């Protein structure tokens, strides 16, 4: 080849290299290619402002580099390229806790670890919570209110056979198994959709869990809701508005949240997935039917049900206290935290209280609402069959949080050579019997 042509090719190569290097700066300033936002939730870095102090201390440089790393041209595309390569070469998902399971099913470590019992809170604690729930159920029933525990189906239990070998651990008792036993032991109202989904896995006409999402499918949650309505009707001896699935749509694309964890993985190319079914729900309006009021406290699994609007059509004035923190529907327009709500009034006005938790969130069941309900009954209502053990238990917690009280008891334990736990119990029991119950 002639030297002139060779030199031109070389010059062209240098220009090409420089163009590749300059492209991100050009994209950032000219945006000739549309920026596709990345999925998932992350703390956004704000653009730093420069000052002499921040420049001299190095703080500005640190913040600027973090901002540049988030904002430079084609950055989102590069993230997708990296994630795609990690997926192809290593079957690695670059989103917190997400793992590629067998047959292309995505799992979440929170659920798989919970399934294997890695976050098991123990028989004793579960028993204690269940006792409290039983007590509250009785109190509520006396006021013609219904407490219902809903075990939302968990993907790790449902697709346990598709968890990759290297993410499996020795199977130990988990929170779902513990609470499930405890609900039966104390005869607490509950529906176990974990069990129901497993039993109907091969029988169901449409998928009960999506391949690329962590939540039960919209179809599966609709079936679950139908069971919840039947349960409430039977328990309260009422006839609620008819809720039924009159048909399903099976589009080619997935609807939120059936691809929620997949969106956080941010791949370049769509992975193949099986189609999902989306129920067409019909609710017959009938003034003769009874719509009880509802508060649901739970995790994100209730959203599939809540977003169908059944809180206003099948139930009445349906509220969702998301993790007992954000209050819906109010927070859609004006974010409000549950501690700003008049708790007593909310309980008085509600007929049905549902706790909806999955295998990965059962360790925080209620997120404090059970204690709030207990205080409500202690402060506002006459306790039905006051459970002395629960009151003592609560007082023990109180004593342990009181530094001065603990110092006195520690000293007494040393002097009397008695175990401090015995002394704490004795004090708590005395307080309950002679102060709490005396003042009732």
């Amino acid at each position, binding site marked *: *080849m002639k030297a002139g042509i*060779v*030199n031109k*090719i*070389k*010059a062209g*190569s*240098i220009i*090409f*290299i*420089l163009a590749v*290097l*300059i492209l*991100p*700066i050009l994209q950032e300033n000219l945006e000739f290619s549309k920026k596709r936002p*990345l*999925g*998932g*939730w*992350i703390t956004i870095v704000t653009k730093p402002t420069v000052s002499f102090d921040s*420049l*001299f*201390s*190095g703080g500005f*440089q640190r913040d600027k*580099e*973090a901002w*540049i*790393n*988030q904002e*430079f*041209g084609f*950055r989102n595309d*590069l*993230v997708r*390229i*990296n994630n795609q*390569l*990690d997926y192809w*070469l*290593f*079957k*690695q998902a*670059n*989103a*917190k806790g*997400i793992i590629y399971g067998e047959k292309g099913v995505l799992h*979440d470590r929170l659920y798989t670890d919970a399934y294997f019992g890695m976050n098991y809170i123990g028989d004793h604690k579960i028993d204690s919570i269940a006792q409290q729930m039983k007590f509250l159920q009785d109190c509520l029933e006396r006021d013609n209110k219904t407490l219902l525990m809903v075990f939302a189906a968990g993907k790790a239990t449902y697709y346990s056979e598709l968890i990759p*070998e*290297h*993410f499996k651990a020795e199977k130990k008792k988990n929170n779902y198994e513990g609470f499930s036993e405890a609900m039966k032991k104390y005869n607490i109202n509950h529906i176990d959709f974990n069990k129901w989904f497993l039993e109907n896995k091969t029988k169901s006409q449409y998928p009960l869990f999506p391949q690329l999402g*962590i939540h039960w499918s919209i179809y599966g949650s609709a079936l679950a809701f139908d069971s919840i309505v039947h349960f409430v009707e039977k328990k309260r001896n009422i006839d609620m508005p008819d809720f039924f699935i009159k048909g399903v749509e099976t589009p080619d694309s997935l609807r939120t949240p059936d691809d*929620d*964890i997949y969106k*956080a993985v*941010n791949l370049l190319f769509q992975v193949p997935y099986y189609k999902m079914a989306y129920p067409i729900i019909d609710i017959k309006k009938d003034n003769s039917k009874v719509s009880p009021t509802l508060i649901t406290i739970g995790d*994100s699994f209730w959203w599939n049900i809540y977003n169908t609007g059944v809180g206003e059509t099948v139930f009445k004035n349906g509220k969702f206290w998301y*993790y007992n*923190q954000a209050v819906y529907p109010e927070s859609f327009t004006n974010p409000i935290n549950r501690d700003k709500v008049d708790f007593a009034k909310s309980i008085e006005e509600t007929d049905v209280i549902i706790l909806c938790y999955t295998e990965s969130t059962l360790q925080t069941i209620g*997120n404090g609402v059970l204690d709030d309900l207990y205080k409500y009954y202690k402060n506002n209502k006459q306790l039905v069959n006051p459970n002395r053990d629960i009151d003592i238990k609560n007082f023990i917690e109180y004593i342990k949080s009181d530094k001065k009280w603990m110092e006195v008891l520690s000293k007494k334990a040393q002097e009397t050579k008695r175990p401090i736990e015995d002394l704490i119990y004795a004090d708590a029991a005395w307080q309950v019997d002679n102060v709490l119950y005396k003042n009732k």
Partner: protein
Amino acid sequence: MVFSSSIFLVYFLPIFLLVYFIADARFKNPILLIASVLFYAWGAPKFIFAILATTTLDFYLVKILYNSQTEKKRKLFLILSLTLNVGMLFYFKYCNFFIENFNAALSAAGAHEITWTKVILPIGISFYTFESLTYVVDVYRKLHKPLNNFWQYQMYILLFPKLIAGPIIRYHEISDQIEDRTINDTIDNKISGFLRFTIGLGKKVLIANVMAAKADEVFALQDADLNAASAWIGMLAYTFQIYFDFSGYSDMAIGIGKMIGFKFPENFDNPYTSQSITEFWRRWHMTLGNWMRNYLYIPLGGNKVKSKFRLYFNLWLVFLASGFWHGAAWTFIIWGIYHGLFLVLERAFLGNVLKKIGKIPATLFTFLLVAIGWVFFRADDVSKAITFLKKLFQFESKTPYLFWDHKFIIMMFVAILLAFFTSFKLGEKTQRVFYSSDELGVAKTISFTVLSCLLFIVSLAAITSSNFNPFIYFRF
């Protein structure tokens, strides 16, 4: 600023190269100097003044030294310059260490400790101080005359491709290139230089960082959780991390240097293929080894000392100094002593043994020795290093809890392949193709361009993604 960062790859490097390539030859050195000052000042805004001040002082001290007529006066200014440079290194890098140990001794004796505010270590000080020392010594030894232009001297010290992590470039190796490098300023070198840079970037980001994540995980384990398998994984992970990180950085420095007309010395020559510790030190961090030989070992007498004891002592002392150069901690000193010990043993008898046992056993034995040495380099303190080493040989049936990570396993295989592939002729040939400075044909030009751009993109993608690990939802 580091090479493997978005700000360097997306802003600094493209803008610098564009301006540098377009500029007339008269302006290249000033542009390079300004870029180097900005590069260092970005990461160390306070220390840039210290380095500018000391280099200014050094320049004039060496000028006076060169112009001095008497040997006495020459020696005086040599000592002044050495004191300035070594003094600075000692203050910033070693004062904390000596004060801490002195206070520990005082405390053990029941005396009051000295109050001391810890000094922050300026980045790159070990490298540029050693280069400053080569400048004054090479001028003193009359190996080369000093630079006439103050700004050229500043540029030699602050030259950003090698400022922070080497290679340590002795003054006389580069002095001519500072004034005129048109002979190396070719399109071929720009293309092959960029390839070398991206190979280094890939080594650092795609291999070293993956190894680092696993090494960090293992070395952070509590003693009770650490078992033999995890310890071996951690040790091997760190062994490859340090090699690919350091050699990757050297590749990037050499690559950028090549793009702008400089020929920097090689720093690594497949050290894990060594068949003895002696050979290892001819292949690992070669510029440090050369520096130690020329400015410490030879002045101590080198190989020409009269007794074997003195020879062994000199060797051992040089490696003690090497260890200490790497860091102000007992672990680094022990690491240096460890290598010095094996160097002495090889001189005594071990070298002959290694020659007789065959290439593969000798290579594996040397690799194992080096890997064990890295445990001291990585551990937080001596007791942790010893505990870790004990765990290596306490075999249990317990499965390591942190084992299965596809990416780590695959990249470990890649690391092993790349670390050892030049043991075979095909590997040697392949490396020569990628690292040579021969004129490029059309096929090489296109393939180098495509490969380097792909490596750049994949590496930049990995860098920016390392900070992006989203939750699915906001969690309470």
